[in-house]
């Protein structure tokens, strides 16, 4: 074992001495994950960043105007929809949230001092607490417009006061004292307004916040659990892809290094030393495996601490080990096919690039057309990505993890056995 570790340490050392190899194994995958992640996550943080579906069930002048103000707001991209469509969009994760303006929205919008504030139903995934808070704030800001409009436009204000006076007189549930007070007060307000109004008067009616008509809006949240068919964070897609690029770098690097031992003649030194061929092969395999685990660890550390990607750790370990086994096996297989560094690099590159393209290392699996997804089943890269995604956003159970894990391990074992059978160590 000590000798196997010595073999492995030597290979890792050599890997780090090769600046190109270090770049393609450690740096390039990060750049890949970062750049593509940023491109695809254009819908976070920028302007018009929040996609919302708006359902106007009221269809009054006020509701239409409020919808317009949402559309004009900087932070939203609006899709007008029916209630069904809106819920669907949110559940499928296409939109962050939906707003429903229920019937009666316009009435409440007009009544500034009476009744309850206009209600907006907000449907959002309960896990999106940050977005929910932000949405509520934005809506409230839009809602305050109704006060500004009222106070800056005396005619409209007069009209609204009339409406309020009428409401007060008609209503049954306002206590008598209040009725008389308001009956006194509101006409005076009307007079004042007609003389001239300032927009920044502060009115307080006290009472409980819920029905406080001076609240700009009443925002009612509805939980819409997103059925996760796609990840929330674009880096959840590009990190597994970056991992694949890194693993490919390891595979090519170690396949070349194995062939190089033969062409340089260092393999002859290993063979005449008192170590078995099994130990020589095990040293290479362990080196390749360790390098892979190291790049996975690095990428996921960056993903966690810098890109905010969350994942299940034990399942990540499972995915990393399974893909490690798979690609160590493939490394051995490729190394056994070629006699020169150039040919082994060529074969390995060609195969891995093809497997990578088909398997989702470039185009995310879940946006692939059906026929391509079918083809991708033949690519070990696909199963590695599925395993890593299972640990990140696919929320796989352990049973579900087993499918990619077993496929990866089987490919790895078969390739490894074939590779070690075919490889001729002594050939100079």
């Amino acid at each position, binding site marked *: 074992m000590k000798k196997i570790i010595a073999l492995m340490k030597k290979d890792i050392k050599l890997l780090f001495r090769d600046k190109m190899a270090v770049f393609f194994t450690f740096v390039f995958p990060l750049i890949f994950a970062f750049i593509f992640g940023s491109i695809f996550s254009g819908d976070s943080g920028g302007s018009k960043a929040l996609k919302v579906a708006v359902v106007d069930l009221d269809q009054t002048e006020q509701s239409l105007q409020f919808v317009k103000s949402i559309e004009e707001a900087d932070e939203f991209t609006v899709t007008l929809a029916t209630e069904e469509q809106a819920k669907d969009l949110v559940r499928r994760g296409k939109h962050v949230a939906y707003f429903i303006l229920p019937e009666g929205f316009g009435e409440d919008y007009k009544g500034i001092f009476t009744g309850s504030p206009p209600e907006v139903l907000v449907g959002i995934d309960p896990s999106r607490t940050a977005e929910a808070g932000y949405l509520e704030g934005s809506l409230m800001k839009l809602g305050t417009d109704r006060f500004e409009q009222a106070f800056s436009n005396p005619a409209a204000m007069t009209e609204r006061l009339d409406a309020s006076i009428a409401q007060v007189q008609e209503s049954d549930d306002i206590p008598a004292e209040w009725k008389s007070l308001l009956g006194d007060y509101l006409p005076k307000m009307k007079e004042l307004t007609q003389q001239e109004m300032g927009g920044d008067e502060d009115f307080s009616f006290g009472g409980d916040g819920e029905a406080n008509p001076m609240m700009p809006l009443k925002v009612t949240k509805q939980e819409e659990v997103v059925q996760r068919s796609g990840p929330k964070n674009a880096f959840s897609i590009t990190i597994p892809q970056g991992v694949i690029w890194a693993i490919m770098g390891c595979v090519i690097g170690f396949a070349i290094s194995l062939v190089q031992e033969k062409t340089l*003649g260092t393999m002859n030194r290993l*063979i005449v*030393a008192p170590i078995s061929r099994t130990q020589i092969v095990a040293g290479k395999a362990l080196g390749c495996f360790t390098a892979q685990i190291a790049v996975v660890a690095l990428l996921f550390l960056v993903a966690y601490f810098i890109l905010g990607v969350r994942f299940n750790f034990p399942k990540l370990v499972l995915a990393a080990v399974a893909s490690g086994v798979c690609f160590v096996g493939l490394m051995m297989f490729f190394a056994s096919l070629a006699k020169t560094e150039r040919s082994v690099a060529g074969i390995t590159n060609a195969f891995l690039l093809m497997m990578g393209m088909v398997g989702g290392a470039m185009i995310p699996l879940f946006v692939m057309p059906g026929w391509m997804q079918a083809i991708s089943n033949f690519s070990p890269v696909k199963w590695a990505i599925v395993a890593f995604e299972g640990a990140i956003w696919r929320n796989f159970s352990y049973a579900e993890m087993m499918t990619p894990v077993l496929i990866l391990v089987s490919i790895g074992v078969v390739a490894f056995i074939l590779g070690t059978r075919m490889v001729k160590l002594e050939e100079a």
Partner: protein
Amino acid sequence: MIQVESLNKRFGNIHAVRDVSLEIHPGQIFGLLGPNGAGKSTSISMMTGLIDADSGSVSLSGLKPQSKEARHKIGLIPQSIALYEELTATDNLSFFASLYDIPKSQLQSRMDWALDFVGLKDRATDRVSGFSGGMKRRLNLAASLLHDPDFIFMDEPTAGVDPQSRNKLFDNVLELKELGKTIIYTTHYMEEAQKLCDQVGIIDHGELLALGTVGELLSQHGGDTLISISSDQGVKEFKSSDVSNDLIQELQASNKVYDISVNRPDLEAVFLNLTGRQLRD
């Protein structure tokens, strides 16, 4: 004692080594002399257990070269520079040392000795990629000596080396002999064989054509020493075996003798006589 009995190896149509038998005594330097493609490396590969012979046997003091015990005693200096260019000299040595069961307490002193032995102590922490051809050759030797092997197989250790490094390597070979090592040394330079080797085997097309001490080979296959006289009578050559009256008469007949030279036979001549070809093209 290295005993080799009728070794054979074929690569497809090429009969790389045919029926080679040798016996090398402890503490001797045995030279395997032959042109490119003669089968020197293939012979060494079979003697060190790198490749299996098609037939025949090798015994290193009674051990099969593939056995673990024998491997601790084999030091192979490959024909190519078998080093990791991107690692330092020390890193290379400590890696190769780690393949042997060298006690930790001795490891450092073995590495120091090996570096010192080949005169690379002051370049220990430099990467091999920056070494000259001669330095690489010397480190190639050092890397094979860490475990203090008894049987040292050197496959053209002086290929592509400047005269200084070459002389250093010659010294190293002789020092190793003094340490009691048994050495097999392949080369296609007859001067090297002549200078270093106690026994020489001449190999061509996989066949061992002659075997013996340098003196034996010269006297058996070298032909006569030629004495040539250049005088006003022209240039005439005489074989040393019939340096009698003819030569004396020739000298007496000449008014002026410009030059007398003695051409002793060398291994080149031995090779020429055995194969009808020059050793080097």
